[in-house]
Each structure stands twice: as structure tokens, then as C-alpha cells.
């Protein structure tokens, strides 16, 4: 028999309307493999609000509630409360929002759900801009990126601020689990998703999901880019469990330039610009390692 490294079960059907090489569809496929059939998903406005298909078609083999852009945190709270009221406690509830729906317009409902420690999983699938509306900048757009609202132009108007650190922000709410996942590492992805499923309370998962359409990258490079983002430290894989940071992958460093130059959205960057990005990324990496070192001491408190 074939030995598969991730579960064989498929709860996402083919025939969805995601673009060629869409990272967000790979993310959903893995998430449902890990969570299984007893899962209810709530999806706000984002690419995934369209990708399941035009009514009556639906690629999701689990119940799905579409909700308004800024409401994911509230929507999953309402589903979970109703399930408790109905005595259906064994169902996993997952919110599935994009980076704009999470880091920008959905931040308030997310923060409130995290603060209440709602017994739900909140996923931010991150393609680093408003892709469904056509590549506008979001709070998760990285330093240096071109988008349609941060065009390069003659004045180098490209994105000047680093990504909003969503895992840190949610972890600061003292939730039991927050982690970063990448579609480039399916086994780690499924492992974290399954771990999240077993924890009760608020769980936040930040999934890196490349977008060929918005990143101006060849569709076949989607997993490759996801892996390069991790190895170049642009998107480190780590988890925060009860306040304790743990970097789950410390790969051999690959040059940031290799990652950037496969994407049209960074094509305008000079070597000098890329050095600026590299400095920012290295600083964040060191900060992460310090957090890991510092919070390790909390282990004693937990015992």
C-alpha cells in the first residue's frame, strides 16, 4: 500500500473556481483533511467566498456558512454557541478568512472572539493583499511589494510597511494556541491543524498561501514559493502554545533574492532595496528566536 504523508480523505472537491495554482485551495484541502467531516466552516468575503462555486455548486463537503466581510470572529462564535445550545459539542468550528478580512476589516470581531477565548479555530489564509477584488494592499502586504494601490510609479510608491504580525497580536490575547503554517510543508501543516483541533479554546492559524495571480508568479511555483518564503525567513514557521514560542522549522537559510525574483510584485526592487528587506526580515527572525528563548522559561510556570 502507498504510504501517504497526509490523510487521504478529500473534503474539498475538484471543480472549484480557484485560479490555476491557487495556494488558498491547497490550504483548504489540507485543512479539511486534518479536521475531518465533523467540521462547520464560516467564510467571509474573500477569494474563498467565490471559489466553492456558483450556486447550486459547492466544492465543500462540510457545512459552509458565508458571512459578511468583517464578521468571521462573530460568526464562528454564533455557530459554536448554537451547537452548545443544541448539545452538538463534538463539531469543530472553523472561520476561514483572508488577510484583509482578518488583519484589516475583521480585526475587531477577531480580537473579541480571541479575548472571549471562544472554542473555535480561526484561520487567516494569507495571500498578502486583497486578491479577490484585484490585488489591493492589505495590512498583511509585505514591505517592498507592488499592489494596484501601492504601484511603483515614478516615485517608488510601493509598500513601505512590514506585515502586521497577526500571530503575535492574537497570541497577546492569551489564547491557548497560535501558529504559522505553510502550504509548502503539508506534513507540518496537517500536524498543526490536527493539534489545533484537539485543543479547546481559541486557536489562530496563519496560513501562508501564494497567489500566482496577485504575485505575478508562474502558477507552477506556488509550493516552491511557499517553501522559499520559509527558508529565506520571510515567513518563519512557529507556534505559540500557552504563551511559549517555538520555532517549528529552522531551515538552512536561502537567499531572499531567490524568493523575491520569482515574483513580478518585487521585480522593481534594486539590490539596495532588497538589502533593506533582508535587514527587516533578519531583525524579525532574531526577535522570534529571542521570544522563543525568553518564553521557554514560562515552561516552569506551566509545570
Amino acid at each position, binding site marked *: 500500500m502507498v504510504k501517504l504523508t497526509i490523510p487521504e480523505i478529500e473534503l474539498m472537491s475538484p471543480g472549484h473556481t480557484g485560479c490555476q495554482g491557487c495556494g488558498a485551495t491547497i490550504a483548504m484541502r489540507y485543512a479539511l483533511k486534518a479536521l475531518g467531516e465533523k467540521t462547520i466552516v464560516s467564510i467571509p468575503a474573500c477569494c474563498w467566498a467565490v471559489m466553492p462555486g456558483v450556486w447550486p455548486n459547492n466544492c465543500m463537503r462540510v457545512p459552509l456558512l458565508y458571512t459578511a466581510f468583517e464578521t468571521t470572529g462573530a460568526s464562528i462564535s454564533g455557530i459554536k454557541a*448554537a451547537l452548545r445550545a443544541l448539545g452538538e459539542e463534538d463539531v469543530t468550528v472553523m472561520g476561514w478568512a483572508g488577510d484583509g478580512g482578518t488583519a484589516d476589516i475583521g480585526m475587531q470581531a477577531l480580537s473579541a472572539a480571541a479575548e472571549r477565548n471562544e472554542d473555535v479555530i480561526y484561520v487567516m489564509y494569507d495571500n498578502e493583499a486583497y486578491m479577490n477584488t484585484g490585488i489591493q494592499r492589505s495590512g498583511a502586504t509585505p514591505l517592498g511589494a507592488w499592489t494596484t494601490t501601492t504601484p511603483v510609479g515614478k516615485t517608488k510608491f510601493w509598500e513601505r510597511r512590514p506585515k502586521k504580525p497577526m500571530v503575535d497580536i492574537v497570541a497577546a490575547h492569551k489564547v491557548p494556541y497560535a501558529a504559522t503554517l505553510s502550504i509548502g510543508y503539508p506534513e507540518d501543516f496537517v500536524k498543526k491543524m490536527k493539534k489545533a483541533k484537539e485543543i479547546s479554546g481559541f486557536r489562530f492559524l496563519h496560513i501562508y498561501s501564494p497567489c500566482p495571480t496577485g504575485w505575478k508568479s508562474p502558477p507552477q511555483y506556488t509550493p516552491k514559493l511557499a517553501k522559499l518564503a520559509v527558508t529565506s525567513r520571510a515567513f518563519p514557521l512557529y507556534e505559540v502554545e500557552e504563551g511559549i514560542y517555538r520555532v517549528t522549522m529552522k531551515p538552512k537559510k536561502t537567499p531572499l533574492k531567490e524568493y523575491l525574483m520569482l515574483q513580478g510584485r518585487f521585480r522593481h526592487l534594486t539590490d539596495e532595496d532588497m538589502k533593506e528587506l533582508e535587514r527587516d526580515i533578519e531583525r524579525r527572525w532574531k526577535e522570534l528566536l529571542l521570544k522563543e528563548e525568553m518564553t521557554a522559561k514560562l515552561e516552569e510556570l506551566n509545570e
Partner: protein
Amino acid sequence: MVRMLLTGNKTTAYSAMRSRVQVVSAYPITPQTTIVEHIAEFIADGLMKAEYIQVESEHSAMAAAIAASNTGARAFTATSAHGLLLMHEMLHWATGARLPVVMVNVNRALGPPWSVWADHLDSISQRDTGWMQYYVENNQEIFDTVIMAYKVSERPDIMLPSMISQDAFYLSHTVEPVDIVEQEVVDNYLPPYDPPYRLDVNNPAGFGSLVMPNHYYEFRYKIAEAMEKAKKYIKEAAEEWYEITGRDYRGLLDCYRCEDADVVLFGAGTMMSTAKEVVDWMRAEGKKVGVARIRVFRPFPGEDVRKVADGAAAIGVMDRAYGFGRGGAFFNEVNSALYNHRNRPPTKNYIIGLGGRDVKPRHIRAIFNDLLKVKDEGLDEEFRWFGLRRENMPEEEI
């Protein structure tokens, strides 16, 4: 029956308890605040078994109520004024999703300038959201209407949300005797929520997906159709409640001495109780006046309005809100119901009581006298800002 002295807000909390709501998601706002406090107390004391979500905003309150309702639980919330406006997007959502969420709104003025007092512009601004809208005149009616509203909303062929509006402070903070109908009686009247569709892991489906223009139109028509059908069911639900309690809400329009009235005054909310009192006084003086209280604004009781017009020589409409650019909403709706009707008496709009300004019996009397003048001499003006502070203001307007 247990007769208790209760504020409108505590009555509202009792109505949620007796309706056995399963999920409450609410956010505090003056003057709704004590509703959510009382519900929280009921839950804390074990008197009410419901999940209470302490959301961070009204927008989330409605989003969570919608999600809970779609999961198969009976959902309830309450709000007021700016809170209701913040919900606006989700009000449309509840309708499109065809979910029987019930909400009590405490009618309050909108800022700026800040005002916490009675005014109908908050709920009038939600007119086109597809919610059934009830306006009540006393605390008993709040209790009765919440229970009846669930009954209508949850019908499998209706599945639309309901909003019950009560006037800030006049009801929310005023104590009145209220009969709290026993739980078993309410249970008999209102069975547990049994939704025709819900999020179910054993029967997975997607709710609210993208629809192309080839069918969106039909889904909208179905909402319109259900709203129209609801008129009949609202009356049926009231009939059944009348048989149990003897309290009569069988008309979408609550007509008081309209049958032989020369002039009829329309309006909604607590000021209509005052108007009924004035009708009795003026009738004693031989003046044939009547009152038509708009108890249900959505669906709009157009047929009933026409019936009233058949007998009246002049119609006045009081609006506790103004639609800037073209008169009060109740006035405009009464007019639109009459335009294609054979009998069209002159109609006049009285803008009154905005921002909680008291509507006194002498004001209503002056309005009736003004209407009797319209009957005899014809219409002088369409819109009158009654009681507008000005030089040489007539005594009866102060």
C-alpha cells in the same frame, strides 16, 4: 398569569425568557442596556437557559445571532439607535439568509447632536432591510409581540426576521403592570424552533453562495412574497394569542373609534396611547375623531389604510422621524397606499416628538382640530413641524 410591575426593558428580558431563546448575542447601548443586564441576570441565576455571547459591537451581535440561527438555535438580540445603524449590513443579511432572528429595538434619536430620547428614525432607516417591523405602545405589548413575532418568523413558509420597536424611556424605563404568561402556556403556543434548513454535519451544504443574475431576482421575489404572506400569519398568530390571553392584536392597524370618524390620525408608538385618550375627550365634545395606530409597519397594512380612508374626510399622519427631503415615512407610506385608491381624502403630515420631545394631550387635540379644519376648508400645507419653536407660537403647541 403572573402580574408584575415591570419596565419595558425588563419585560423584554422576560419575553426572551418565555420564548426560550437559545442564543443571545448583545452589546449594551443606552437605553437598551437594562435588557441585556436583565437577561444576563436571568442566565446567571439559572432562570434562563441560553448561551450568552458578550460581543464587542452590535454588528457582531447581529452576525453572531445570524450564525446561531443558521445553526438551528432560536436567536435573540436587542439594541437601539446607533447600535441598530451599525447592524444595518447584517439586517439585510438576516433577510437574504432567510433566518427568523427576533430583535427588540429601543427607538432612540440619532446623533449628532447626541440624544438618548425617543425618536423613530433609527428603525425607520431600516425600512427596506426586509425585517418585519412592529411598533408597540405599552409594555404588555412588548411581551406579547416578541412571542408572536417568533411564531410568525419561524413559519417554514416565512423564515424572515422580526424587529419589535419600543419607545425610549416612555416604555424602556417606565414601570407598568404586565402579565407574564406562564411558561407552559407559552410553550404550547410557541413550540421549539424546528428550522427547515440548518448547518448540519450530517447533511452538508453551503448557505448564501454566489448567485448569478439568472436567479438572484427570483430569490428577491421570494422574500417579497413571504413578506406579503406574513400579513395573514401575523393576524392568525394574534388570533390564537387572543384566545389564550384575551388581548387583542388582531389588526396590523390598531384602529380606535375609526368606524364613523370624520378625521383619523395615524401614527405609531406610545404617543398613540395619548391620542386614544384625546379621542375619548373629543368624542365627548361631539367631535368625530379616530386613531389608527400603525402596529405593523412591515409588511405595510395598505388594505387596512384604504379601509380607513373610505370612511374619513381627512387623514393626519404623525411621524416621530423625518425623512429629509420628503416628509415622514409613515405619511409617505399612507399616501402611497391611497394613491391608487378611489377614495383619497386630503392627508397631512405632522412631524412631532423628535429627540424625545414630549407629545402632550393638548398637542394631539390641536392636531385633531387642525385636521377638522382641513376637512372643512381643504389642505393648507402637506408638512407641518408641529411645536417648532418660533415667534408668536400658539399656546397649544408649547
